[in-house]
């Protein structure tokens, strides 16, 4: 499906990062190709205008991986990205994250906002987001979700933005990331330890990030960001500087970053990729298991699943909360992005299975007995991602056993909606019950 050669360009960026900047092992296999999940998902996040939560032990490249991707995809010099990052700490304030009053104008009795670099630039990195107290996490909810930043009744809206947040594992200085904020992240990925040998290489190669810096362009961009012109004009001016920086990178490093129109075209190509029937049916099956409750109508975190329920063998029995509507959006977008990246003409079940664990791991609250059963299992992934991968495997196995019947049930549902007098198919899986409920609505 290679159109306009953008896949090739993006793969070059991936290769450059993995060969020169972020050393790590491939830990993700999709259709025979092996990738490092941190680089791949960060790349897809940047292309897709997504939001990614990167977890890991201190010093394992959580922030630097995001910085490298943002530089090469959005053409921002590293120095500007550093200057725009927000760090999570208990003393963080709205003025440091979003904007502050223009003190000069305030003295004259006028209200005007000096926006922070973080709120203005399209690449946003929040470092150690879980060090923000929970009350302060609520401050950035709307901005994280929609790119809307409001201060003193003024607002800027980011047309294009991607967000990376890093979080260390829980220690004495961290807080829980509040559930509404966690749900807004599309994917969660771990930046892992690369192994002793690659870590040694990392130690040998110092200051490799210098190749992604350029003092002149950084100064120019800071000047634009500080200027008092309208936000839309700023963005146009910034783009010009970023394009120039991108040309410099291409000449100096041989890797061609993406300009804004390239990113727009890539997104358009991704969006037109459709899901094949297996991908669609599998996704519906997974969502049904994450939300269904025979006894209470749907999963709710305040309602316990009783033992002896007929659906004990399904995911709904192992989880406490209901899947949000952001989950299918994240799954579909990232599956489309992955399919585009691999040059496939449609999203199939392999793409969906590859991205689903990362899209769902931070959104599921597992029951305590499920956690205690599995916490000592041997694994390479952190526990939440491991559990999500196991869940996807189990649902995938169930799908393989009854894929034809499920597709029949969905096809019959389509026919009933068209007015044909057919009976919906019976089956044990929650999805059949969901189909019946939807069909009943149509009949009523």
């Amino acid at each position, binding site marked *: 499906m290679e159109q306009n050669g953008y896949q090739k360009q993006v793969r070059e960026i991936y290769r450059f990062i993995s060969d020169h900047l972020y050393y790590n092992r491939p830990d993700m296999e999709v259709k025979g190709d092996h990738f490092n999940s941190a680089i791949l998902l960060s790349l897809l996040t940047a292309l897709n205008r997504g939001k990614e939560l990167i977890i890991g032990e201190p010093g394992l490249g959580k922030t630097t991986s995001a910085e490298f991707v943002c530089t090469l995809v959005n053409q921002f010099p590293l120095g500007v990205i550093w200057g725009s990052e927000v760090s999570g700490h208990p003393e963080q304030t709205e003025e440091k994250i979003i904007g502050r009053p223009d003190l000069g104008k305030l003295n004259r009795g006028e209200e005007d906002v000096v926006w922070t670099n973080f709120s203005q630039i399209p690449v946003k990195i929040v470092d150690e987001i879980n060090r923000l107290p929970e009350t302060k996490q609520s401050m950035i909810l709307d901005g994280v979700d929609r790119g809307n930043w409001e201060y003193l009744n003024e607002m800027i809206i980011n047309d294009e933005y991607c967000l990376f947040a890093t979080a260390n594992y829980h220690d004495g200085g961290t807080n829980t990331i509040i559930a509404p904020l966690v749900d807004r992240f599309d994917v969660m990925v771990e930046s892992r330890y690369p192994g002793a040998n690659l870590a040694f290489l990392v130690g040998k190669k110092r200051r490799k990030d210098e190749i992604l810096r350029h003092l002149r362009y950084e100064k120019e961009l800071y000047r634009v960001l500080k200027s008092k012109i309208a936000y839309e004009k700023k963005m146009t001016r910034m783009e010009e500087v970023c394009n120039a920086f991108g040309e410099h990178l291409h000449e100096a490093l041989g890797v061609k970053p993406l300009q804004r129109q390239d990113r727009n075209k890539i997104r358009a190509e991704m969006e037109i990729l459709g899901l094949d029937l297996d991908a669609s049916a599998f996704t519906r099956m997974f969502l049904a298991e994450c939300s269904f409750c025979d006894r209470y109508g749907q999963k709710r975190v305040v309602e316990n699943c009783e033992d002896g329920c007929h659906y004990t063998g399904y995911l709904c029995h192992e989880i406490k909360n209901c899947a949000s509507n952001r989950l299918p959006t994240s799954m579909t977008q990232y599956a489309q992005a992955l399919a585009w990246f691999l040059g496939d003409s449609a999203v199939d079940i392999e793409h969906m299975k590859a991205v689903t664990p990362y899209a769902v791991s931070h959104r599921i609250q597992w029951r305590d007995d499920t956690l205690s059963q599995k916490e000592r299992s041997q694994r390479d992934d952190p526990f939440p991602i491991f559990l999500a991968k196991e869940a996807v495997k189990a649902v995938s196995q169930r799908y393989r056993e009854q894929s034809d019947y499920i597709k*029949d049930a969905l*096809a019959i549902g389509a026919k009933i909606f068209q007015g044909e007098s057919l009976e919906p198919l019976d089956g044990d899986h929650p999805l059949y019950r969901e189909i019946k409920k939807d069909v009943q*609505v149509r009949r009523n």
Partner: protein
Amino acid sequence: MKGTPQTKARAPRLSERRGPAIQNPFQEFQSYSFFTKNIPLDRIVQSAEGVMDQIRMGYEKLLEEEAKELVWMVQYNTIIKAYEVAERYVREIDYSAEDIEDFCFALENTQKIPYLIPGPAGLYISALCNYAKEEEIVLKLSELKTEINLLGFRLTKGKRLLIEGDGGDFTGIGLEGGDLVVEGNAKNWTGAGMRSGKILVKKNIGLHTGEWMMGGEIHVGGRVRGLGNIVEGKVFEREKMVFPGKVRHPNMYY
């Protein structure tokens, strides 16, 4: 206005609404060709359900015609008439011995058969047994809470009916050469008016046993509470012939 009858406005059906149609969440599966798989078990189940429906309908028609307001009197004429009605319906159904057993189970265990009236039910089952293709029929009645009367009515020669459980009143009356076995007890009027054949009751039997019996044999493994006015035939109590034999007075103590 209060007191004025008004026609309640009917909510417009989906096809009549002018607003946007409900989103079809299965749209992408519109063109998927599905095949309704029909496995042999499905066909067997469908077939069995069809036969059961026919048997059930026959019983309901019998009740409609013969059990007015669910009252049914055991009298010679009503028995004959009801049996003829049952025969009429049973003859039109293609069933097997298992279906008769399923019907007996369904009498008490499904909502589809609302009334179990022991007399008509027994006659209907007797008709089913007499017109079944099989020579031997087993009725598992030990789980039933209600005893069914008139089982084995006019059981014909060459037929063997085994009742697992107890029989009600009038078991085996009018036997016509058949072989009737009751694994449990039988109540009163057992074998009344039988012409030929054999009845074996493995446990106890009630009063009026063999009343107006014209031939055949009744064997009882337990106690006979009382014999009826027997014309001809034999009655055995624990392998000892009690008719023809000494006159017995009915035992009123048990």
